[in-house]
């Protein structure tokens, strides 16, 4: 009985602390120039570079733009904030508080999620206003964007567990992971058009399922069944959360 009460109250403590961590990140990092460049401008220029010279109707590329905007914006906050906080000693404040590592990881990831969904609304609005890109299933689009954002913000938190105070080191590792993801996820080349081996490789990328879900939201159709997309994304979220919490604990021993 007592144990249950204790564990319940710890869950509430953890959720409160996670939200406090997310709010702190929102107030502190959202307007940092390197966050804006890496999270908003980088995917935009990448998209424009890819879209230029293609015969495809630009409006049909909007789901791809939304997906890569989420990938870059969600995964950028923590790889910037956590090494900085290690350097100035504020990260130790989190570790020494009566908060579990999963709660710290969740709180850090939450700020990336909120930032990313906010930023990704921009290409959605551009698609609607400039290219009249229809949104056939707004609920699926929203769920897809949130899940995708949480998945990649957790991925950013996971990469930021690398014990360094140097932002550049973490960003280098992150780019080695996320840049290839753009090309093995069906964002620019539809999965159906990929040759066999390449298509199998894309099955290992969370962006594949995130993009598929977002496409579903826009076009009403996707490559995979919708529940498979949801299940795999949730699976990646849990895997990244668990691994990140484990690594933070391990690196602080």
């Amino acid at each position, binding site marked *: 009985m007592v144990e249950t009460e204790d564990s319940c109250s*710890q869950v*509430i*403590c953890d959720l*409160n*602390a996670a*939200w*406090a*961590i997310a*709010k*702190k990140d929102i*107030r*502190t990092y959202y307007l940092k120039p390197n966050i804006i460049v890496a999270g908003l401008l980088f995917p935009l220029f990448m998209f424009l570079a890819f879209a230029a010279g293609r015969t495809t109707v630009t409006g049909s590329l909007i789901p791809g733009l939304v997906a890569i905007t989420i990938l870059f914006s969600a995964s950028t906050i923590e790889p910037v904030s956590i090494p900085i906080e290690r350097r*100035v*000693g*504020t990260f*130790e*404040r*989190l*570790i*020494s*508080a*009566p*908060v*579990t590592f999963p709660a710290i990881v969740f709180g850090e990831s939450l700020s990336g999620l909120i930032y990313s969904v906010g930023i990704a609304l921009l290409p959605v609005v551009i698609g609607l206003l400039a290219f009249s890109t229809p949104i056939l299933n707004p609920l699926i689009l929203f769920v897809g964007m949130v899940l995708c954002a949480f998945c990649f913000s957790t991925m950013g938190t996971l990469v930021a567990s690398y014990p360094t105070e140097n932002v550049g080191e973490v960003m280098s590792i992150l780019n080695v992971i996320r840049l290839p993801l753009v090309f093995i996820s069906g964002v620019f080349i539809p999965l159906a058009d990929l040759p066999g081996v390449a298509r199998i490789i894309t099955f290992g990328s969370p962006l594949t399922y995130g993009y598929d879900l977002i496409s579903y939201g826009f076009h009403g159709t996707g490559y995979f069944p919708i529940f498979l997309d949801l299940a795999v994304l949730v699976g990646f979220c849990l895997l990244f959360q668990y691994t990140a919490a484990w690594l933070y604990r391990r690196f*602080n*021993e």
Partner: protein
Amino acid sequence: MNAIEVSGLEKRFGPITAIGGIDFSVRDGETFGFLGPNGAGKTTTIRILTGVARPTKGRAAIFGHDVVNETLAAKKHLGIVTEVSNIYDDLTGWQNVAFAGSLYNVPRAEIQKRGTELLEQFGLLERQHDRAKGYSKGMKRRLCIAMGLVNAPRLLFLDEPTSGLDVQSNLIIRQVIRDLNREGVTIFLTTHNIEEANLTCERVAIINHGQIAAIDTPERLKRAISSVQSVEVAFDRVIPSLQDDLTGLPGVNELRKEGDKFRLLTSDPPALLLQVMDYAHQHGLAVIRVCTLGPTLEDVFIRLTGIELPAEGKDAW
């Protein structure tokens, strides 16, 4: 129940032993000083006690809660002020305090009440809505301590609380330490300012090379090295051979120049006092101050840690 209980605590980083099997306890409500030269193992010990690092061997408990197996329960009692003022420069003073309270699950109304009291106590209330990046070093330090107290901890870790601060901040912080002690809060103080530990702490531990070299009350520690006594003297003027002459007086073991005064270390202060007065008379010097001193806590620290003074430091100390 003791506030801190440490037994056989050991921490190794590969082949390096940072702390090697230390034992000590801190009583509930006690102000305890933890002294040692750089690299002695102070920070590693604090990191283990605050649940940030894990020991390689041994056990540490905070109010009976094991720091490894019951980490969260142990952490709930703590307030931590690290050596570096780890505040968020982009948040306001108030937001910093509120954030610290949220991490300890302090109810919002309590944060409001206690946060306001603390900011007022530390002289920060007027600047509470300014971003901390505009604060002076002393203000940042005071804010950091306010953040460490917002959860009303039973045990406060203070790592170098007054290092490099202005007089106003020093006075505020020392007063707060005294007030907390009166309220029954246990204080674990790490400082390089040995006089501060002497004045503030009921007991001190001196750690060196990862081992506890001594642990006792400051006065008992000083008595243990009573051979380190001294005569302190100041003259109305300085003659060229003064330092050499004083060093050569019978019974002088060491000379330390402290500002305009000379401190002559000896095992027989009364005999040396006569020698000094004789010397002054012979050379036409007026003695403007003279006194005999027992060993200071700093002497104890130097003796126990085996710190070597620089070659000319013995004279220029």
